[in-house]
């Protein structure tokens, strides 16, 4: 059964898993702001658990603060919207009603980064990992496949913790097997190697795995670290890998400022100064375009990741 989830669009995995969480704990609630079909919760959650499903309309600010009120009464609300509306539009509501008040609200940003393609630049949020990471009390997760998404959601429901999670909507390549258990304090070492460390999160990990395998076959031993939690950040795994390889490439479906690459640089500059190359969107807004076009334009597709790893691995003077 668990492998069947790999064949589903991630949003339907979200809906199915949220439905299971509600069945397990009736305090769990599903909040939406008129994008419930896009989030995969309508009809899955709406029809099975109508009493736990609350659609507030196109009013994201109200959704977040209503969720805070629900959480203050013991509910466990999962609030979803497009990433742009779930984070930057309601940044103060999340900051004060949720994080500052330290209430158990789960914010879910769907269609992160370039996956918002057809909706274009207005709907592309390239800074959610960065801005949510800068918020005290907030955990920030970016699961990379269906089984990790399920494990992350179970963790979220079981832990009293303001949390932000990216939700990729479409189907993605399987990375993890059924026995995988998410731990926000531990990065997943997906491939081991001594030549270069590749650090990835969320949507990009499915591209990073075949790149690492291809480079291994070409004689470049890539150590691939997947970070399902950008905050808290597992510093030990990163530092240990960087000490070994002395070369680090980061890749994220984000602006290169402040997100995963930023976190990596903060840690390494303090604990293990290392040459780092950050791949992602170079401080630009999005535009309506295919993912392929945007990956090529901004230089963080599989070929760019491979080239960056090769370049660093070949460099004689690093660190």
């Amino acid at each position, binding site marked *: 059964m668990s492998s069947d989830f790999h064949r589903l669009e991630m949003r339907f995995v979200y809906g199915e898993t949220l439905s299971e969480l509600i069945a397990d704990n009736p305090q769990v609630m599903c909040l939406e702001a008129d994008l419930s079909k896009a989030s995969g919760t309508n009809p899955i959650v709406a029809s099975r658990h109508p009493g736990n499903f609350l659609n507030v*309309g196109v009013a994201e*600010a109200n959704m977040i603060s*209503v969720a*805070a009120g629900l*959480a203050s009464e013991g509910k466990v609300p999962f609030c979803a919207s497009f990433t742009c509306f779930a984070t930057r539009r309601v940044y103060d509501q999340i900051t*004060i*009603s949720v994080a500052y008040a330290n209430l158990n609200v789960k914010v879910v940003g769907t269609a992160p980064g370039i996956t918002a393609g057809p909706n274009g630049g207005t709907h592309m949020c390239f800074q959610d990992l960065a801005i949510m990471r800068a918020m005290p009390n907030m955990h920030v997760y970016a699961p990379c496949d269906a089984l990790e998404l399920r494990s992350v959601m179970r963790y979220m429901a079981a832990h009293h913790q303001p949390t932000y999670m990216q939700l990729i909507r479409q189907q993605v390549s399987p990375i993890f097997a059924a026995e995988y258990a998410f731990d926000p304090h531990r990065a997943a070492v997906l491939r081991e190697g001594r030549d270069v460390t590749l650090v990835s999160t969320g949507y990009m990990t499915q591209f990073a795995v075949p790149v690492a395998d291809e480079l291994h076959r070409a004689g470049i031993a890539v150590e691939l670290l997947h970070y399902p939690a950008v905050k808290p950040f597992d510093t030990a795994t990163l530092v240990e890998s960087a000490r070994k390889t002395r070369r680090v490439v980061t890749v994220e479906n984000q602006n290169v400022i402040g997100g995963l690459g930023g976190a990596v640089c903060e840690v390494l500059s303090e604990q293990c100064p290392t040459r780092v190359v950050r791949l992602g969107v170079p401080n630009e807004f999005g535009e309506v375009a295919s993912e392929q076009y945007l990956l090529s334009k901004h230089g963080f597709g599989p070929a760019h990741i491979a080239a960056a790893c090769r370049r660093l691995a070949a460099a004689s003077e690093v660190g």
Partner: protein
Amino acid sequence: MHCPVTEPAEFDREEFDRMAAEWRYIITDMICRAGSGHLGGALSLVEVIITLYYRILRVDPAHPRWDGRDRLVLSKGHAAPVLYLALACRGFFPASWLKTLNADGTRLPSHADARYVPGIDMTTGSLGQGLSCACGAAYAARLDRKSHRVFCIIGDGESNEGQVWEAALFAGHHKLDNLLVITDYNKLQIDAFTDDLLSLEPLRDKWRSFGWEVLEMDGHDWDSVYDTLQAALATQGKPKMIIAHTIKAKGCCLVENKPESHNIKVPDQATYDKFLNSLPLKAALPY
């Protein structure tokens, strides 16, 4: 005043008048002691808060998180000093805390904070959010078939915020009749009179058109406050809005009904004395 841990009492007009005057003196002292603070919006709520905490709210100071309690969300969180005083007088925490308002390391920050203060149900301070939080608390109570009531106090300046009207739509749509909201309509916001800066009128019609039961009261008249609250609580099927007509900084003649009452600055002893002397009654401080 020795700020006894007061039980809700039978209404005695003289007693309540004296309590209100003493509270105005103590609140002004708390803020002056801190060197600055939101005086106007705290003083405009004195009769409303006294009536709530001595005649209306079901709360248990010995068990601040008692599940059956009525909730109160002070969405205009900057009026926290009057709420802190009410909670201290009802015995939620020692009156000695009151003199620490805004002091380094205090448990009583300028805006109402549920993390540190027993008896505060929601952390507020960023205007517009508390009403949505109260809607969430009321929605949860309905889901769980609990009989407590959710009270919320918003400001007139705060009602400039779009989120207030998102919440108004939400509560009206869901007919949250366990939610009672009071607008502290003192007609002043930070920069100017509300009618000159961004008029809310016709305020009664606005709330009514959003599906709310709307009542109005004189927020400084004991009978008007109590009777209107009781009348609102007796209605069913809709969320309730009470527009409380109040006077900002009521009783502090130095700044009463003036924009500068919003956040007073008290840089020196002379200013401190000027504020305290502008009040009609000098109370013994409970700290």
